[in-house]
């Protein structure tokens, strides 16, 4: 049994403009001590999905299950859920300045967390907080513990958030874009701290990011989300070298290549509005390989024999990777599958509609 097993999770907001299904039938699992990267553009539902698991989304309709050690988190009572939050599953967020309370000392905030879950004295909790700050690489932790968040640098704040999250040795750490708000050099340091904590405590990590590059170093498995759905799941190696879904391929190709002067190729267009999703495959308006069949929504189906690599795309399952041969075969498949010929997805759609 996996540590966390999410099945068919859907989350619907009711907005003034209508129902907005931010997460649609999402399934994934996380093994103890492993790292799962969740990748997708802004608005793809990464935060909503993970926050729903923690019971942090309000005024939503939720279906599906999220089994944590066999217990469905989505059916827990408020007080049962509170015992899980922080102590079993901890979270850190994108902006460490706004995520820490501006009016309380950093140490106070860590101590509060420890004492909420454990019956320890203030002094003992404080001593632990100092140790934690030291272990995430904050120098002079016995002085820094009495600082306010605004007296910390961005990187230090995120380290402090990690220290707080790790205070109770949680089984899962959900890191929601933990490095997006930081400088590139600081990003690497923060990721390294997370990895070190993972090795020390055996914590499983869900690392949310819109940057596949961040995932490349530390994720064991990768879940790619698009418009509220999982479009591809695979281990890291497969994601980078044998990805199947055109969206995953697009994300990879839009990564800046460090050692070549190859140009950045961003995915054209922008994600669809969740209030007005295109019929069929949601990636259709942006997909360069769109076929007639794509008017029908592709299921997340096994790509390899073991069924560990899954993708929601109608292209043949044996066409993977970014190589030239694969590219040619995709185009051939697309051509064969459509009466309108190859072109950018947008062109093809336009032609079909004309």
């Amino acid at each position, binding site marked *: 049994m996996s540590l966390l097993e999410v099945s068919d999770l859907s989350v619907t907001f009711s907005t003034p403009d209508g129902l907005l299904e931010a997460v649609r039938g999402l399934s994934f699992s996380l093994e103890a001590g492993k790292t799962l990267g969740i990748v997708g553009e802004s608005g793809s539902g990464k935060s909503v999905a993970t926050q729903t698991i923690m019971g942090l989304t309000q005024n939503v309709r939720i279906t599906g299950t999220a089994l944590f050690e066999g217990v469905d988190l989505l059916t827990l009572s408020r007080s049962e859920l509170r015992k899980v939050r922080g102590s079993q599953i901890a979270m850190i*967020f994108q902006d460490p300045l706004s995520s820490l309370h501006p009016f309380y000392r950093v140490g106070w905030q860590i101590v509060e967390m420890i004492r909420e879950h454990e019956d320890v004295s203030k002094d003992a909790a404080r001593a632990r907080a100092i140790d934690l700050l030291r272990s995430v690489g904050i120098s002079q932790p016995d002085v820094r513990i009495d600082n*306010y968040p605004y007296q910390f640098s961005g990187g230090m704040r995120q380290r402090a958030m990690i220290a707080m999250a790790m205070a109770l040795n949680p089984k899962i750490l959900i890191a929601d874009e933990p490095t997006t708000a930081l400088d590139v050099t600081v990003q690497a340091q923060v990721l390294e701290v997370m990895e070190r904590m993972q090795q020390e405590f055996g914590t499983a990590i869900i690392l949310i990011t819109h940057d596949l590059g961040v995932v490349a170093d530390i994720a064991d498995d990768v879940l790619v989300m698009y418009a509220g759905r999982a479009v591809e799941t695979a281990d890291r190696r497969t994601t980078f070298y044998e990805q199947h879904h055109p969206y995953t391929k697009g994300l990879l190709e839009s990564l800046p290549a460090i050692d070549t002067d190859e140009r950045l190729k961003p995915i054209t267009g922008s994600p669809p509005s969740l209030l007005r999703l295109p019929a069929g495959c949601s990636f259709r308006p942006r997909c360069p390989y769109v076929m007639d069949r794509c008017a029908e929504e592709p299921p997340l189906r096994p790509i390899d024999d073991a069924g560990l690599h899954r993708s929601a795309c109608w292209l043949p399952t044996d066409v993977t990777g970014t190589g030239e041969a694969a590219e040619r075969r995709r185009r051939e498949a697309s051509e064969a599958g459509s009466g309108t010929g190859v072109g950018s997805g947008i062109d093809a759609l336009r032609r079909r509609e004309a």
Partner: protein
Amino acid sequence: MARFLVRRISLGVVVLWIITILVFVMFFVAPNDVAHRIAGRNATPATVAVVRHTLGLDKPVTTQYWHFLIRLLHGNLGQSYFTQQSVSSLLSSRLPATLSIMAGAAVIWMLLGVTNGVISAIRPRSLADRGLTSFALFFYSLPTFVLGLAMLNIFFYQLHTHGIPNLPGSGYVPLTQDPYQWFVHMILPWITLALLLAATYTRLTRNSMLDVLSEDYIRTARSKGLGEGRVVMRHGLRSALTPIVTQFGIDLGTLVGNLVVTEKVFGISGVGALAVDSITNGDLPVIIGVVIVASAAVVVMNIIVDIAYAVLDPRVRLN
């Protein structure tokens, strides 16, 4: 913090000093000759000259101001033209009643407004939210004297005529003389003022709380496994307090109008009533006394509000 205090208090002293100049210019220099008014309409020029001399009005303006300031610093605000009572003793006899009304009303309106605001913010657009907002707006829209008279009518007159134990309708009993009677006499003025002002705080707290509750650090607090009560009060309200404290400072300063009416309706001889009477009578020394005391109160309130800021927000305290 100490440096902050020193700076803030020195600034307050400067502001007070400027106020004394303004008062002096307004009442002694600018308008028609004070000596004429004191000597009376039919006084001979000789009498006026005598009055002018005794008041020191024949000296240069700067000397006059200097004397005015020295007297002020000795707590000497002159004597009422009418009762010949010293203005400072007049004021100090009236002040306790006014302070009692203000302090009690402030406690009630803050508790009422902030509590209602928090409840509204926890469930925006709920029945409780709508109910409390309408309740607050209803009282907010009433003129002070209408609410005061209505309270008087119900809790004094109606209860009395129906033989039900009623609240006293007027008067002030000093706290030192009889705490129970003091309390009972204060209830109606307190509630009247509090109901009028609570609405502002309900709305302010609600909006401020709604902003704060959508902050990232509230999500952090919840993700730590804290109880909702602690999240809302300790993490939410703590941040939402700043605009509420600002408003409180402003309201205490501008309460004068409401205070005057309340004192009049409930027959309490406070500073507000004194102000009205002295203006009607043209009792200049008393008017000046009231203006200076009121200004000093506003200045002191502002210092207290600033200190409250510093206590609330470490970024203010430590910079």
